[in-house]
């Protein structure tokens, strides 16, 4: 008789029937079942096919270590392979599929591999599929992959939500068996903050699967009582269905919470737990016995069978064999007998302790016997028992076989940081290394196998951890315990049954047998790490949880060593498989990484821009008009319009750094190659920055607004790098200089107006004299618009035309840009994007990071004159002088034109002399930038060419083997658009022939428009009121004064770093009023960031939990009280987090990140709701 269900008993709820399907067949189970127990109760013992030989397999260990019963759940994007049927909680409508079989689980053609097994033993991959190499990818790999394997992943996107969250505690307890429960209890009673995780859906571990008595309670009753007390304690967080998968440095643990079937919230959640102490109560795995046919369905671990009887009332047939080397088999026999089943118990020992004999006394007990082979097809039907003394064999028919070879403490998490477990010769097991780094093992994870010992060791560990953290734990009394075999736990070590005739499996998931390990030793792969790779033992989804110790024992035997000399393989995260979706959390799709949106993003969108990703930014690529089918015609039109008339584009993404302080000029002299200190106030200058090795880091402009006030720009791409570099120079190299750096990129919308008509357009907007005399090339100064708005105007150009950049506070950007469009309409003003910008700069030979590629010097790019020969010191000065960086045979910037103008040239092509072979030795250089120039009617390119400046006029071949074409090009100077900036002043234009245009006041921008903002009672998100935000800066030494001043704003001090504190004005307060009120002492300055930050307010009882999704601050500990404020990383976005009241937080974020963070916060609120 096969497996079925007892009509009574168990922890299942027979009143709740649950329908599910397996390989298309409909079944019914009960609430409280796992998929595995429900299948067994329905007589479905066959659950999968093995990896290599396609042998029929059934449930072996249950739990997280299950190697055989792997299934795939769901379909499409929800498809999830390799799930252990024993870890899947049964739910209505669940549809599971078996794996690695074709055409069906019952009839699998791959089983022919079993007949071929003499040819496909260990290492056969390495021996067989060696030649011809051409077949590796096309034939061998696909065929092997299909025949040997686990489940298939889905290729469809996963529609589920995942989340990551931080949690903090004094004590993390891993596992809720007897030791885990008492550890959590004793620490929680002492007042410690405790997190208790268990990978199962219910707390209790073996207490709910074994028949035990604790005081006057049974196991489940005791577990429930403790769990109830813990749940009622506000300092305790209980996480069921949560596997701690990794133990990392600094007491940080990773855990995966599976929320299968949850009606709301994420499907899975990764917890990052910061624990001051941890108790490892992960229990022990029962050790399989290695004998012939030990993988047949219906053979399982003795404790697994007990658990199925007690928890899920699964009946393992009528006559059950038990093969044991210790107490566990006798305990299982006792429980089978109590349920009225017939039991034949085979014990390898001769002297069985009396307590164990007593437990199994009504069974047929064969002492000093072993099971040599199990027989059967898709389920075990008989066992062949051998008398160790006489060697006589006897065949006994059975319906199921329970086996126990002793116990392996689950030591993985104690060893993931490099420690190795210790071999305990007396007990015959690997035990965890000594407690270290606050992690201590307790209970059976520490090798203590009796229940009373587990309860006691857990209570002690919890109390010890609490005491070490300053709590005062009371003694937790352990009630009287009664369990099978009187707590006898000894077992004899039996690595394998050498009399076995059939295949004896060591690693079930990878089909590794005793003989494979012997082969590995004979062939020189006996080292445990080599044997693992040669035989694949301990690989794949179960990572050898059941097999490793047996493999070590067998290797030891083969090599004539003790197991501790063989040692273990390396323990690494993850303890159990974790899906990529869970690890990614919310960082996928549009939120794969934070997106920065320019203050003119909405403006560009409104005017039809097509956006492309450029670093962190979304930038307008081009502004197509009707009939323009691709970027190309739009780009051509935009380029022509700028050269012929006037264009407008967004330069806001350029990095902008405000540099102030008494020594600002001296500092910039050290940063740039040129002399900055000689720059006049009101002027801008082009500047180059080197790395200390003399190569170019970045280029940009420096504008001086006061003796001690500069604004520098960086390229968009290098903004972060340059800021960090300058901060390093200011803080680590020259901390004695008074220089303060503030990123003001987010503060300003920077609008480029370029083209011969740009001045005529801007005079309608800017209320200033813009004549050549008043606003010459490289002028830079504060201006007022006709509307009265204060702005900054720069006469700088990246297109080679007469051009201006107008910077206005970010919130005014859209209105001002619209006003410029209005003012430019008579001149045919045209918005242009990144593509046109690129063409315009190539036409003028202006460089970007295509040329500043980490290998070029200023001289290489024809900018040698920008390097000061007089300054005694600047970053990169000494190394730039190296001979190798000064030689005249270096690659130098040149222009290239194809001989036939319509012939395409592309960046990346290499340059060759005509009629030379494309070899490294013949390489003359490469093309860095290329485009079609509509203004010239030709393709053009910039290139780095060896001795390029001396080779103008020479013809070369642009060789592009990757894209498969060649073109003949002629070398020229790297300037294609010869027209100098129009210096002739058209006085007519200056007389305002068109009236002034005044931008409208900015419309308030609600980032939360259309987003879910939470619900009252949990947490809600609103925009902060509009107030002034500024940064008070001063020398770090004057930090106290800076803090005092900043606190005067709204009463809260928001420190960023020593000498930099954010200040927030009162609602409705003017800038002048705030400045007056702050009464700043000398030496301090104020940098307006009202447009560079947005404030979001998150409030409610769940606010701290929502923030734990984003940041690692321990908000719940009570240390982050109202008035506390800190710069933090929220997800990947830097922000200033301030507690402004009880359960109320202000999130002050860089405004260009505002939209991204608002969306992420909204998502977290939705998942919490």
């Amino acid at each position, binding site marked *: 008789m096969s497996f079925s269900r007892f009509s009574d008993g168990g922890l299942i709820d027979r009143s709740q029937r649950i329908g599910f399907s397996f390989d298309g067949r409909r079944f019914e189970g009960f609430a409280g079942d796992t998929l595995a127990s429900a299948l067994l109760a329905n007589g479905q013992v066959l659950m999968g096919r093995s990896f290599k030989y396609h042998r029929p397999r059934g449930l072996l260990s249950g739990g997280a270590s299950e190697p055989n019963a792997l299934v795939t759940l769901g379909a499409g994007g929800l498809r999830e392979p390799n799930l252990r049927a024993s870890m899947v909680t049964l739910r209505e409508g669940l549809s599971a599929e078996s794996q690695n079989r074709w055409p069906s689980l019952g009839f699998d053609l791959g089983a022919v591999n079993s007949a071929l097994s003499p040819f496909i033993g260990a290492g056969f991959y390495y021996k067989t599929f060696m030649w011809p190499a051409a077949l590796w990818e096309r034939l061998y790999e696909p065929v092997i992959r299909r025949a040997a394997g686990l489940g298939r992943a889905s290729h469809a996107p996963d529609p589920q939500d995942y989340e990551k969250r931080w949690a903090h505690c004094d004590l993390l307890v891993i596992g809720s068996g007897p030791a885990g429960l008492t550890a959590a209890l004793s620490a929680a009673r002492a007042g410690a903050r405790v997190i208790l995780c268990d990978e199962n859906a219910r707390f209790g571990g073996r207490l709910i699967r074994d028949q035990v008595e604790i005081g006057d309670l049974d196991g489940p009753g005791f577990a429930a009582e403790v769990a109830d007390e813990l749940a009622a304690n506000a300092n305790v967080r209980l996480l069921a269905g949560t596997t701690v998968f990794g133990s990392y*440095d600094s007491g940080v643990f990773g855990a995966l919470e599976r929320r299968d079937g949850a009606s709301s919230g994420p499907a899975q959640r990764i917890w990052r737990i910061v624990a001051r102490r941890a108790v490892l109560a992960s229990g022990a795995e029962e050790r399989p016995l290695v004998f012939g046919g030990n993988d047949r369905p219906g053979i399982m671990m003795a404790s697994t069978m007990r658990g199925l009887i007690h928890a899920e009332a699964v009946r393992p047939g009528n006559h059950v064999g038990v093969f044991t080397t210790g107490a566990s088999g006798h305990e299982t026999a006792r429980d089978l007998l109590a349920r009225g089943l017939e039991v034949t118990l085979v014990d390898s020992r001769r002297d069985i302790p009396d307590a164990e004999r007593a437990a199994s006394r009504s069974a047929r007990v064969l002492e000093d016997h072993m099971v040599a082979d199990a027989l059967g097809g898709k389920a075990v039907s008989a066992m062949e028992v051998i008398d160790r003394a006489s060697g006589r064999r006897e065949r006994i028919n059975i319906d199921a076989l329970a086996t126990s070879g002793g116990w392996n403490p689950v030591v993985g998490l104690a060893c993931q*940081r490099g420690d190795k477990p210790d071999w305990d010769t007396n007990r015959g097991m690997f035990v965890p290394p000594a407690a270290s780094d606050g992690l201590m093992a307790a209970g059976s994870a520490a090798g203590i196998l009796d229940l009373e010992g587990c309860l006691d060791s857990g209570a002690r560990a919890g109390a010890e951890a609490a005491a070490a953290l300053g709590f005062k734990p009371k003694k937790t009394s352990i009630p009287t315990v009664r369990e099978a075999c009187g707590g006898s736990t000894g077992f004899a070590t039996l690595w394998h049954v050498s009399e076995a005739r059939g295949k004896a499996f060591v690693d079930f998931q990878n089909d590794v047998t005793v003989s494979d390990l012997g082969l590995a030793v004979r062939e020189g792969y006996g080292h445990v790490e080599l044997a693992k790779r040669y035989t694949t033992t301990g690989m794949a989804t179960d990572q050898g949880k059941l097999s490793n110790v047996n493999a070590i024992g067998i290797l030891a035997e083969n090599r004539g060593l003790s197991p501790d000399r063989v040692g273990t393989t390396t323990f690494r995260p993850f303890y159990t498989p974790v899906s990529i979706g869970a690890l990614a959390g919310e960082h996928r799709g549009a939120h794969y990484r934070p997106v920065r949106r320019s203050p003119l993003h909405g403006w560009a969108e409104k005017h039809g821009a097509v956006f492309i990703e450029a670093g962190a930014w979304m930038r307008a690529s081009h502004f197509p008009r009707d009939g323009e089918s691709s970027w190309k015609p739009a780009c051509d039109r935009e380029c022509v319009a700028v050269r012929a008339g006037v264009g407008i584009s967004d330069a806001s993404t350029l990095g902008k750094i405000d540099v102030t302080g008494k020594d600002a000029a001296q500092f910039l002299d050290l940063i740039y190659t040129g002399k900055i200190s000689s720059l006049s106030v009101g002027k801008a200058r082009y500047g180059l920055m080197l790395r*200390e090795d003399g190569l170019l880091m970045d280029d940009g402009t420096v504008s001086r607004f006061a003796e001690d006030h500069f604004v520098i720009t960086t390229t968009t791409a290098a903004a972060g790098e340059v800021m960090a570099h300058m901060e390093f120079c200011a*803080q680590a190299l020259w901390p004695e200089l008074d220089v303060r750096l503030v990123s003001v990129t987010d503060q300003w919308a920077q609008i480029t107006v370029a083209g011969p008509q740009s001045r005529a357009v801007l005079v309608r907007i800017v209320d200033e004299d813009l004549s050549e005399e008043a606003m010459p090339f490289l002028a830079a100064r504060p201006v007022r618009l006709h509307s009265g708005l204060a702005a900054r105007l720069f006469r700088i150009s990246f297109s080679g035309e007469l051009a201006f950049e107008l910077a206005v506070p970010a919130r005014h950007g859209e209105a001002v840009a619209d006003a410029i469009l209005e003012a430019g309409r008579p001149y045919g003003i045209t918005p242009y994007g990144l593509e046109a910008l690129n063409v315009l700069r190539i036409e003028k030979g202006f460089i970007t990071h295509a040329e500043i590629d980490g290998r070029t010097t200023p001289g290489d790019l024809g900018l040698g004159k920008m390097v000061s020969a007089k300054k*005694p010191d600047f970053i990169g000065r000494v190394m730039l002088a190296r001979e190798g960086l000064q030689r005249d045979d270096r690659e130098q910037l040149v222009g290239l034109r194809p001989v036939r103008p319509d012939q395409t040239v592309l960046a990346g092509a290499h340059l060759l002399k005509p009629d030379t072979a494309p070899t490294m030795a013949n390489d003359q250089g490469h093309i860095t930038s290329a485009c079609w120039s509509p203004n010239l009617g030709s393709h053009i390119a910039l290139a780095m060419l060896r001795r390029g400046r001396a080779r103008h006029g020479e013809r070369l071949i642009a060789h592009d083997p990757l894209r498969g074409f060649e073109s003949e090009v002629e070398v020229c100077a790297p300037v294609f658009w010869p027209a100098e900036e129009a210096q002739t002043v058209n006085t007519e234009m200056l007389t305002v022939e068109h009236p002034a245009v005044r931008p409208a006041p900015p419309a308030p921008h609600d980032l939360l428009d259309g987003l879910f903002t939470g619900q009252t009672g949990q947490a809600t998100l609103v925009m902060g009121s509009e107030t002034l935000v500024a940064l008070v800066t001063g020398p770090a030494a004057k930090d106290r004064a800076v803090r005092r001043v900043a606190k005067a704003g709204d009463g809260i001090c928001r*420190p960023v770093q020593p000498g930099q504190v954010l200040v927030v004005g009162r609602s409705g307060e003017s800038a002048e009023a705030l400045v007056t009120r702050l009464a700043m002492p000398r030496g301090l300055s104020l940098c307006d960031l009202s447009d560079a930050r947005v404030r979001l307010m998150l409030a409610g009882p769940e606010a701290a939990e929502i923030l734990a999704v984003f940041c690692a601050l321990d908000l719940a500990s009570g240390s982050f009280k109202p008035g506390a404020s800190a*710069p933090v*990383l929220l997800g990947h976005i830097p922000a200033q987090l301030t507690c402004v009241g009880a359960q109320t937080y202000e999130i002050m974020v860089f405004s260009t990140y505002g939209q991204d963070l608002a969306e992420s916060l909204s998502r977290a609120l939705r998942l919490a709701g």
Partner: protein
Amino acid sequence: MASLINCPHCGVRPREEFTIRGDAGPVRPAPDADFGAWDAYVHLRDNVRGPMAEHWQHSGGCRRWLVVERDTFTHEVFAVVDAADYTRVPVAKPARARKAANPAGRRGGA
């Protein structure tokens, strides 16, 4: 690397908030120092197994440059100071030889 770093300005923060630069040992030579000194400063680095002082920036927090003294093998962090203070009062390079074994007590933090 330790999972948590104790920023002297911000307190204990996760590693993700920090960005490494490298060895904090080499001191920028005087502008007129001989070329060998500059070559060593720019190019020569030890591949340390054991205690080492490194420049890290708290890029996701206060943005201050720090000197983190840590063991590259055990991942223990001995001390974290502001780079400005480190430059002025050079801390003796940690001479304590740490064994591979894990140090007693809590790691991380400081």
